[in-house]
Structures are given as C-alpha cells and as structure tokens.
C-alpha cells in the first residue's frame, strides 16, 4: 500500500498536472509566509521573554506554552468568527482567501516559535551572559552573540513553526473553505479526496506533502548542521 502511494505521488509529480502544482505552490506560499510572520513576531518575543523579568512574566510564559498546543481548529474558528462578513474584521473582505489561511497559520505557528525561542535563550548560561556584558558588548552585540549561541535551538524553532503551519488542516478548511483553484492546499485536498473515497489519490497527495516538508526541513537542517561543523 505504501509503495502504491509512493508510486502515485511520483506519477503525479512527473505528470506535471497543473492543478497539482497550483496546490503545491499555494501550500508553499501560504505556509512559508505564515512561518516568516510567525518568526518576525515569535523570535523577538521569545528573546524578550527569555531575558527580561517583569510582573506577570510567568503568566505570559504559561500562556505561550499553552498556546503551543492550541488545536488548529480552534484557531480556525476564532479567525473565522473575526473575519466573517459580519464579524469585527469582516470589512477586510478576506474570509475564504489565502490571506485568511495565512493569518490562522500565524496564530498557530507563533506560539511554537515563541516558546522554543524562549527555551533556547534560557538555556544559555547566565554567567556567559554576564561575561559578554563584561567584555563591553552593547545591547545589539549582546543579542547577536546570544542568538549565535542559541542558533541550533533557534533553527529548531523555525522548523517546528513551519511544520505546524504546513501540517494543519482544520483552520485551512474553515477559513479558506478548500475552494478549488483558490484556497485548496495539500492538507485540505487530502481530506477532500478521502471523503470522496479516493484513498490512493489521498495517499499520493500525502506523500507529496511529506516530501515537500522533508525538502524544506532538510534544507534548514543542513544549515543547522553545517554551522555545527564550523564551531
């Protein structure tokens, strides 16, 4: 059965089916954009939470950690309620568009990136931090050294964030609508093919999804491990 799925996936890819490539392209566009936004929010937020202490910090950290496990379908429901025609953000007119999926995925991936960044920064020895300061580093240099020190863990945060975004299906279904040619991504396509009883097609699409995720994760991993050799 697995080999049939692999074979199906390979045949789909080489056949150059424009519909399939459109779905792949949209999936990549949406999930990588969502990951980038999640990084822009989550990295600084995680570093901030990892270094500063302020009243209520513990509470914020526990909220972030809880949100790391936020079910995508809950994120989807909240985004749907907000973006629906008569919802508070309905005037933006972006429900059932790829943008809506991006927003939902940002909400799903940001806590993952934030939480893992926070953990990465906190792993760095406090004495090491004091040492950098003692050597006369300004704030920017200080942060740069910290980020470099934590780079392996931070790349893990990137990989996990991307994985959370590209693999979710509940939110993409709800706020995107799984519309053919507009908002159908790989995960929602799999769900549809299963409900149509096309198990082989669904399996092949799953392999395509896993393969793409593998390629991107492998690229990030090689970046992670290459730096390892240098140090």
């Amino acid at each position, binding site marked *: 059965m697995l080999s049939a799925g692999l074979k199906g996936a390979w045949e789909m890819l080489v056949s150059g089916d424009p519909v399939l490539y459109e779905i792949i392209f949209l999936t990549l566009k949406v999930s990588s954009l969502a990951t980038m*936004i999640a990084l822009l929010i989550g990295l600084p937020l995680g570093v901030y939470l990892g270094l500063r202490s302020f009243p209520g910090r513990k509470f914020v950290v526990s909220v972030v950690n809880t949100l790391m496990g936020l079910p995508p379908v809950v994120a989807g429901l909240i985004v749907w309620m907000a973006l629906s*025609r008569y919802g508070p953000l309905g005037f933006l007119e972006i429900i059932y568009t790829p943008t809506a999926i991006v927003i939902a995925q940002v909400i799903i991936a940001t806590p993952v990136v934030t939480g893992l960044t926070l953990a990465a920064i906190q792993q760095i020895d406090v004495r090491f931090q004091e040492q950098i300061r003692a050597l006369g580093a300004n704030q920017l240099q200080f942060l740069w050294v910290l980020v470099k020190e934590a780079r392996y863990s931070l790349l893990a945060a990137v990989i996990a964030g991307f994985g959370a975004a590209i693999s979710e299906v509940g939110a993409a279904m709800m706020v995107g609508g799984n519309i053919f040619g507009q908002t159908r991504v790989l995960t929602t396509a799999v769900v549809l093919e299963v*409900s*149509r009883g096309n198990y082989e097609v669904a399996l092949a699409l799953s392999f395509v999804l896993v393969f793409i995720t593998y390629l991107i994760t492998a690229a990030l991993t090689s970046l992670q491990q290459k730096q390892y050799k240098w140090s």
Partner: protein
Amino acid sequence: MKKFLVGIIVVLALAFLISGDNESDILVLATTTSVQDSGLLDVIVPLYETETGITVKYIAVGSGQALELARRGEVDALLVHDPKGEEELAKEGYVVNRQRLMHNSMVIVGPSEDPAGVKEAESAIEAFMRIYETESLFVSRGDDSGTHRLEVSIWQASSITPEENYLSVGSGMGATLTIAGQKNAYALTDKATYLWLKDSLSLVILHEGSEELLNIYHVMQVNPERFELVNDEAGKGFVEFMLSAEIQELIGTFGVDLVGEPLFYPAAGGR
C-alpha cells in the same frame, strides 16, 4: 514593545495585500458535502465563472451549517437538500427565490447478508424498524446535515428512538459509509456518494425508491434586503444559471460515464 506592535501591524497589513479580489465580483455559495464530493460543481462553476466573470467561492458544509451561514448573511446563495429547514428559512425571510434544482434518491445500504431483512421492507420506515428490532448496527451521520435530518425524520415517523446499536459518527457521507462498511452496519446514504464509493465498500443497496427517500436539492438566494453585504445580482444570476436548459441537461448526464447512471436528475420548475 511599542515598536514591536507596530511591526506586527505592518506585517499583517502586508499580508492583507496579497488578496486583491474585488468583492462585488464574488459569489459565496454554501453547498453540501454530498454535492462537492460528487464533483458536479467542479464542472458547473467554471462554466458560470467564464460566462459572467464572477468568481465563485463555494464552501462545502453540512446542510445545518449551510442554513446557519444563510441565517447570518455570510453567504450569497445556497444549494442544499433540507426542504423542511429551507422552508423555515424562507418563511423567516432569510432566503428568497428558492427553486427546485434537481433530485436523486436516498438509499439504505448494509451488509450483503442483510441480517435485518431490509430487502423485504416495503418502506423506509419499515426498513428502519427491522434494523431496530433485529438489533443490527446502524451508523448515522450525526452532523445535522440534510441526510442526517432525513434519517431523523424517518426514525420519528417510525416512533423509534434508537439508542443502542446506533453510532452517531459526526462525519461526512464518505467517512460514514466507510465506518459502516468496516463495521458491517446499515446506513442511510445519498445514492450519488454510494455509487462514487461503491468499489471501496463492502455494502450493497438494500432499499431504494420509496417516497420518503426522495432527496431534493434546491438552489436559492440569501435575501439581499435583509443583509446589505449580500451580493444580490450574483445570487440572482446564479439561480437563473443553474435553472438554464444547458445546465439542467448537464446535470442529467453528469456521472453517467463514471458510475453508469446519472448522479442527479434535473428537476427545474417542478415542485
């Protein structure tokens, strides 16, 4: 922290820019999973889009959710199969221009050994009673869809409240049939989905053709006078388009090459 918030807003604003559709050229249509799974709209919608230049967003959900979306003015048109619920919606003024579009028949499927003797039943109600009395397993959609509502109305007509040997799975038709097949259970299904999935199931049709099992689809507009954001013209145009001779003929032939008989029968104009 302030800079940080500004950053978030800028990024989100950039994200919004990637969607550039003009809302007046969009028709949001809520339809049922049974219609989507059949693939009928994948054929019809592109024809409508080329003819009118309007982009159709069709959302496949259970009939219950579709009706609720109309009640909230979130969609412009409906293509559903829950006549009772639709009539209520029309009476309350949420939908207008409701037209009969097509029909097919629901069927009762089950294991070929047919332990409950559904084959001998003369009506759907009797079939359900036989399933209940022989304590055979029945798998229900349980998702407030049109199919589920029809099933509930048949149970009600037979004055039975099934509790034991009754699985409410809360899933679409395809998933429900798969579960029924795996468990050698009975289920009520639309014929289209069954024919579509037949090869991957171990279920056979045991009862069909009785009057209670007629599955009627209507197409209608959400009332634009009630919701200012509802696209009046596109909704009206879509209803007209679906009733046109060209589309009615297409509906009558759709699926013949795939499963040997039409998945839906055109029914425009009738009541």
